[in-house]
């Protein structure tokens, strides 16, 4: 394989054993940071859903190692590192500093994702950063949960460009107060921030310890060569595939304002070990919040590349750099200020993935799954709990059908592709919130027929036990079904319905809200199924299986 990017005296060649040991430690540190964050945070979205990501960056801001967290957070992390270093160059950092940001146009993803970077010093020299990206359940804006339908980013919540919130180990309380004054349920957000800070600090402590144990030079070499190693592996796998140039287009369900020109058009060129993805023919940016900032689009490409390469390569900036992404500025996949973006993380990113997979299926049908439910299906509920008098915000994602693969049915009711947050236990939510759930079940028939069936969608029904609950839904595939591959049939569609007492039921758009719901009203959410793989046979067409079954 090509070794052009590695000097002959690289640590990986000279001392592969030390390289392997230190690199594994880097990835283990990311897992430890995640533990601390989940155990000390206050939002169920963090402690139970794990909507958070951890990484170690080198001194250039590139990802050297990352946790087993959220792909859309992590693929965007190199952009975060670069933006932070542009705002605060290397020589300006002191031990104990920390930078917070959430600006999607300056290193962030969407406003609820708060990123915190802390520098790591060994022998007085900056060797890298610990980074966490944490979804705060609320960052202000027009609706509780900061995930509703707005026509500019100013309405989506508080926007924070790279901000040196922590100086010499001290959090700037006045600035933190400013942030907390602009979000809902500030007490819990303060707890979440402390948890995030503690996780970053744990990472700093561990990485600095590694630096002392193995020496600064070795540690810096591993931070860099970890990326080179993954880069080489991805390119090696790419080179083993036949060359191809393929195209595909998929149209999103709309932006909440009735826009219909919402098509992602992609052209992928795989030649030798090179992988070029061109979105030039994609629709322009739209009024509603489905616009993707470039880091979100790039994340989606990186995810697909990693899956195509085989799924067992350690992810980091080096692996990601094996893809070349062209996305025209001002388009749906490279939006600019002041476009609203909140639904791109959860919805657009997953539809970009399905578009990329649909293109790749034309060249490599055996290696990629059929279309999936194309969504995270975010719903948010917020209001006052009449029992406690306390304000509440509820933010949850709902799984759906994964596309079938050659050899295996799609999984039902799972978070696919760009997200991986867990559901919130119904019993815990009913104990804490004025909500009652009436269904959480698989919609089996939504799995597209095929030699192997697509995964089924999910039906979730929740009743309000309080008046004046603000409800928003961000979903996909109410209009365009998940495509099958190699003769497989498309999956079933999503739908979102409000059932009010004494009134006809109202079907909502895929992105909709905030709606004011009253006690006794029910919100019914059904996510889409995955596409099938291969022509259905008489048995597989008749009998949906739960998941993963051979026919």
């Amino acid at each position: 394989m090509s070794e052009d990017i590695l000097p002959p005296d690289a640590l990986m060649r000279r001392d592969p054993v030390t390289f392997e040991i230190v690199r594994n430690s880097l990835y283990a540190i990311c897992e430890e940071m995640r533990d601390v964050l989940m155990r000390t945070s206050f939002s169920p979205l963090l402690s139970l859903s794990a909507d958070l990501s951890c990484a170690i960056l080198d001194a250039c801001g590139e990802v050297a190692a990352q946790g087993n967290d959220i792909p859309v957070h992590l693929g965007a992390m190199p952009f975060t590192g670069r933006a932070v270093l542009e705002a605060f160059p290397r020589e300006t950092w002191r031990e104990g500093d920390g930078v917070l940001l959430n600006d999607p146009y300056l290193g962030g993803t969407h406003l609820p994702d708060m990123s915190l970077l802390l520098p790591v010093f060994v022998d007085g020299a900056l060797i890298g950063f610990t980074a966490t990206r944490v979804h705060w359940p609320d960052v202000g804006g027009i609706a509780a949960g900061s995930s509703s339908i707005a026509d500019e980013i100013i309405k989506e919540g508080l926007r924070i460009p790279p901000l040196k919130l922590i100086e010499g180990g001290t959090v700037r309380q006045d600035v933190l107060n400013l942030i907390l004054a602009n979000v809902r349920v500030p007490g819990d957000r303060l707890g979440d921030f402390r948890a995030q800070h503690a996780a970053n600090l744990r990472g700093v402590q561990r990485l600095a310890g590694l630096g002392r144990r193995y020496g600064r030079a070795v540690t810096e070499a591993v931070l860099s060569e970890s990326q080179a190693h993954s880069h080489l592996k991805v390119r090696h796998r790419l080179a083993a595939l036949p060359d191809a140039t393929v195209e595909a287009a998929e149209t999103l369900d709309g932006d909440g304002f009735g826009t219909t020109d919402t098509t992602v058009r992609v052209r992928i060129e795989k030649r030798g070990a090179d992988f070029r993805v061109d979105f030039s023919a994609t629709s322009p940016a739209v009024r509603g919040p489905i616009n993707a900032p470039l880091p979100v689009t790039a994340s989606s490409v990186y995810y697909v590349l990693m899956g195509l390469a085989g799924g067992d390569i350690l992810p980091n900036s080096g692996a990601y750099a094996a893809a070349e992404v062209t996305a025209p500025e001002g388009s749906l996949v490279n939006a600019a200020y002041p476009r609203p973006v909140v639904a791109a993380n959860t919805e657009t990113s997953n539809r970009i993935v399905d578009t990329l997979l649909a293109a790749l299926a034309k060249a490599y049908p055996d290696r990629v799954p059929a279309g999936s439910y194309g969504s995270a299906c975010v719903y948010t509920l917020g209001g006052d709990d009449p029992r406690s008098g306390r304000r509440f915000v509820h933010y949850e994602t709902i799984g759906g059908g994964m596309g079938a693969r050659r050899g295996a049915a799609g999984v039902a009711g799972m978070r696919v592709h760009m997200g991986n947050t867990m559901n919130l236990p119904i019993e815990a939510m009913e104990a804490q919130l004025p909500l009652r759930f009436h269904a959480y079940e698989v919609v089996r028939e939504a799995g597209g027929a095929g030699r192997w069936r697509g995964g089924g969608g999910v039906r979730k029904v929740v009743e309000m036990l309080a008046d004046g609950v603000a409800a928003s839904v961000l979903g996909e595939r109410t209009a365009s079904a998940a495509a099958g591959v190699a003769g497989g049939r498309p999956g079933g569609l999503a739908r979102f319905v409000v059932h009010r007492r004494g009134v006809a039921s109202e079907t909502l758009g895929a992105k909709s809200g905030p709606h004011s719901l009253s006690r006794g009203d029910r919100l019914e959410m059904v996510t889409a199924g995955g596409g099938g793989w291969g022509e259905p046979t008489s048995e597989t067409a008749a009998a949906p299986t739960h998941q993963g079954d051979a026919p």
Partner: protein
Amino acid sequence: MADRPNGSRALPSIAVGIDVGGTFTDAIVADLATGACLDAFKLPSTPQDPAIAVLHAVDRIKESHPLDGVIICHGTTVGTNALIERRGVRTALVATEGFTDVIELRRQARPELYTFDVRISEPLVAPGDRFGLAARTDAEGREIAPLPDLGPLVEKLRAAGFEAVAVCLLHAYAAPEHEHAVGAALDAALPEAFVSLSSDVAPEIGEFERTSTTVVNAYIGPRVRGYLERLHKGLAERGAGGLAIVKSSGGLTTPQNAARYPAHLVESGPAAGLTASARFGATIGEPNVLAFDMGGTTAKAGVVVDGEPRIITEFYADSLVEGRRTGGYPILSPVIDVVEIGAGGGSIAYLDEAGVLKVGPESAGASPGPACYGKGGTRPTVTDAHAVIGTLRPGPLAQAGITLRPDLARIAIDTHLARPLGWDVAQAAHAILEIATANMAEMVRLATVRRGLDVRDFTMVPSGGAGPLHASAIAREVGIERIAVPPLPGMFSALGATLAPVRHDVSRSLVTTLATLTADALAAAFVPLIEKMDALFAAETIPLRPATTARLADIRFRGQLFELSIPLGAGGEPVPEPAAIDRAFRDAYVAEYGFDLPGSEVELVSLRLVATAEREGGATTATLAPDAASLVEDGAVLGRDGAAIPTRFLDAAALGAGHTLAGPAVVAVGGATVWIDGPAEITRGADGGVRIALTPRADQEAA
């Protein structure tokens, strides 16, 4: 099933421990009063019915020891294997209408991120075998919708011939009445079926984890019950005094309790090993033990803190399949906290596409096995590295019918690693061990550092076929300075079974802020737990000393969702004042996470009562009679640079008591091999094992 205890019966003189492994069934006979090992042997396991080998072992013991009154202590993997191999029974699930698929939807996440080949542990109940019930309670336990007529449901289940039924209704942890009614109707209509109620098996909030636990219990229940019945009958025919089963917590219990909660037995085998580590540590004055077990395909690490095995309340069974993460089956039960990785003697070493050396998780297994076993294996393994370096002795392998072939190991390492890397074989062999050591060191850090424990406070106790070979290298890597190799390290789980106490854990949810709690109310809240505990001990058949009980509370900051377990003193003492509990919690929180939250309220979530009782007249320590053989020879192992390193080879028995040997050395202890790869002081313990004090090497000062 089990007999009532016969209080007037004389105590037996021996303790028997039997552990069933994949290849061998280990048996140990120890003097009950002194713990001296009287007999220890291995028989081939009988996977089609593990009870056969157990009863064979008992027959052999009976040839030289009277069995009257003798309790056979047994760690069993019957439930574990039924789960992992999907050989449980066809099970029905009765759940709240609208929520029958909770078991399939899990927590909705996928276990691996960047793969299209997603693998998820398949639900143990098929979609068509899930039944909804239109009854509902809320989180406060109030009835929202009453139970319907159960007749049609029960008839459907009866007609379909289910052998097991799991019942899990929403909020049954708070209000078990609906489940009780369903259970009563099922017991009446399906008397042969194994019925598990979530409010009985795992009365904790969280519908997926509770359902999963209840379903596992039902799914493996009939298999475990049948096995225990066969074993109990066979033992009775042989005149033994009874049977005691090791639970996942490491404690013993009666076959009745074991058969009712098979989900509590899934980690029975490793639990016995950790109990042995704790007891062995107590014997040698080491309250903090890092138990390290390594066999052919996996390595495990668990910790004993202040003499107590670390216990957690939830784990994921079967979550690693063929080296892939699959999610597994959550089980809510007290279980020893063990970290396991796919690293063993059979782990295969290879070069990945970028030319980096990797070891495992793929294993050569029992067949074809390592290249040096000469049974057709050609790919290099960890064991082959030892064969090349010279740490593997032909003697113990010959007993298992294997002729050691270092020449084949050299070829395997040369072909697959050394030549492609441009190295010589010695360097490649050492590199295999260094990678394996690094992987296992990470596992040890997971079991210690990641749980807020400082490894330097621990003594490593290695066990399993390969544990003693790797102990010294791993200890150096993580910073452990003391190693204590126990007697019979290769039969540690069987030994642990003979030493285990009877243990029961009971708990209840009680969510309240500490500020609104009084010591009197707290004491009153423990009363029902004490009553439940008394009932469990009343059912025990083993003669026991008085139990010691410990109170614990799960506490968190109000608004958080993870708790810390805070001790509230021994059973007989007055409960602490809430203000003292508040302080203890905040101190523990700062120690764990590094910060306090002065403005936040402290909330109590649940109460736990743990009681252990030692066996009457039983030893809690083990010793090994010195072996007559006492080989000592000067030899050499192959260094990384290809040069021979002079190394002493000897049997532990050859070390005079109190004599000290300087490393490097290779020492045989109770059939296992200990490799001390560098400077160390080695002494023999009174129990027949060896103690190793590692001397820091120059290149390790910075650790």
